[in-house]
């Protein structure tokens, strides 16, 4: 295991139940500053629920989510908005505003937050689009571009505000292997360039082993294993092996 310095994100004893279903049963996870942490685990295993807790879209039944020293699960109103302004989020389906063009989508967060000079907004948005290779697509609507392009626009929109923490919820779901690699390549390139802390939920195995700083496996509502890609790949733990090698569980 790698030694973890003062973490940028620390999840402690996170529990969440929906009705009779206990989705998170005490999740503990520490993400170091500027680290690209990939959370893997079976579909329906609570990865997205964990991510929604990090974004404070869901409140935990117990436990804490500490980001830069603040427990986001206990924040409300302006204080919560204050920390969210440092986030960039790529949702599973992109979550682009479908009644706005691609350029307007990327413009939206910077125009509304008023952190940048008005004359700076359009060049900034266009630069963000150029970075994801979509400089010419600004005038199109989300419905007029392909699934892979929509993911790229979502990444551009997440990064245009220069976030310090980036969350990605299965950013490659539904893409072909070539597109998966190109999106991963893009994420790694941007991560290296900007040095943000990133938490990415994914089940692209083995591709994520090439891009993650560390990998955490969520299993039965807890972080079952965490380590560098090499450590996870060489793990002798049966649950980890079953998951990453796609072995069918014998019952």
């Amino acid at each position: 295991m790698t030694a973890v310095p003062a973490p940028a994100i620390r999840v402690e004893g996170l529990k969440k139940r929906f009705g009779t279903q206990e989705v998170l049963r005490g999740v503990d996870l520490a993400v170091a500053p500027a680290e690209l942490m990939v959370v893997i685990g079976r579909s329906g295993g609570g990865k997205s629920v964990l991510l929604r807790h990090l974004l404070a879209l869901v409140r935990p039944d117990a436990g804490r989510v500490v980001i830069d020293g603040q427990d986001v699960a206990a924040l409300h109103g302006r204080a919560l908005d204050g920390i969210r302004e440092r986030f960039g989020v790529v949702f599973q389906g992109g979550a682009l505003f479908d009644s706005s063009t691609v350029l307007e989508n990327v413009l939206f967060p910077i125009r509304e937050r008023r952190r940048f000079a008005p004359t700076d907004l359009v060049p900034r948005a266009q630069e963000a689009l150029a970075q994801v290779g979509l400089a010419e697509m600004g005038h199109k609507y989300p419905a007029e571009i392909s699934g892979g392009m929509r993911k790229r626009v979502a990444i551009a929109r997440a990064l245009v505000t220069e976030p310090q923490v980036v969350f990605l919820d299965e950013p490659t779901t539904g893409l072909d292997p070539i597109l998966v690699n190109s999106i991963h390549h893009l994420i790694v390139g941007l991560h290296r360039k900007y040095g943000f802390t990133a938490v990415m939920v994914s089940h692209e195995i083995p591709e994520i082993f090439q891009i993650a700083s560390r990998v955490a496996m969520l299993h039965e509502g807890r972080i079952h294993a965490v380590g560098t890609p090499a450590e996870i790949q060489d793990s002798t733990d049966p649950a980890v092996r079953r998951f990453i090698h796609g072995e069918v569980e014998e019952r």
Partner: protein
Amino acid sequence: MPGSLVLDGVQSLGRYGIRTLASLGRFGMFLGEALLWAVVPPFKARQALQRIWFVGLRSLSVILLTGAFTGMVLGLQGMLMLQRVGSEAFVGPLVAIALVRELGPVLAALMVTGRAGSALAAEIGVMRITEQIDALTVMALNPMRYLVVPTLVAGVVTLPLLAWIFDVVGIYGGYLVTVKLFGMSSGTYFGQIRAFLDTGDIWVGFWKALVFGLIIAWVACYKGFHVGHGAEGVGRATTEAVVLASVLILVVDYFLGSVLP
């Protein structure tokens, strides 16, 4: 055992009651929160104008059409009825007062519910299930401010205007039937309207339309925000929004009718 059957019945009735009360509470609190955000600047004028365009201008053709025919029907039935008692001179006030106090606001609101309320619920519902509302939230941009308040403003601004348009078109519809078809003099028709229709009637119509506009926007936003899963959830939210808004409009109309002078 019959005893436990009764107990089960009471329990499920209690559960149903609590659930209904809780959802009524959520429904009310949703409006309360939206009204609170409506008075906290900054105001999203651009979003409000887009909504006014959507709710108002795009409902205009259906308002013109239904307004004209409602006035024509009132003129026709009023004429046939009042001819029997020899008071056909009063058909103008009958058409005008019925429209301005009652039918203008109610029918315009029902038309807007069908035309724009359903579309708003579906649009917001789709934004919810495709995580667009979550995207707004995590951008630290309050969805109440960006989605709900502009919609409420649009409802409150456009409904009185649409109701007035409905009234005016309806009065001319009545004119068409009584003057052009039955041969009444236009001086009698409009003169009697001027004599009997007062500003109090116009205010009643105004307040009703304003409240109905608020109801349509409130219900559509609430149902869209609390949508179930997938396309089926959006479909159900849309239907529920139309039914709930229509029922509320008719119920509230009765109470406003008895409270307003």
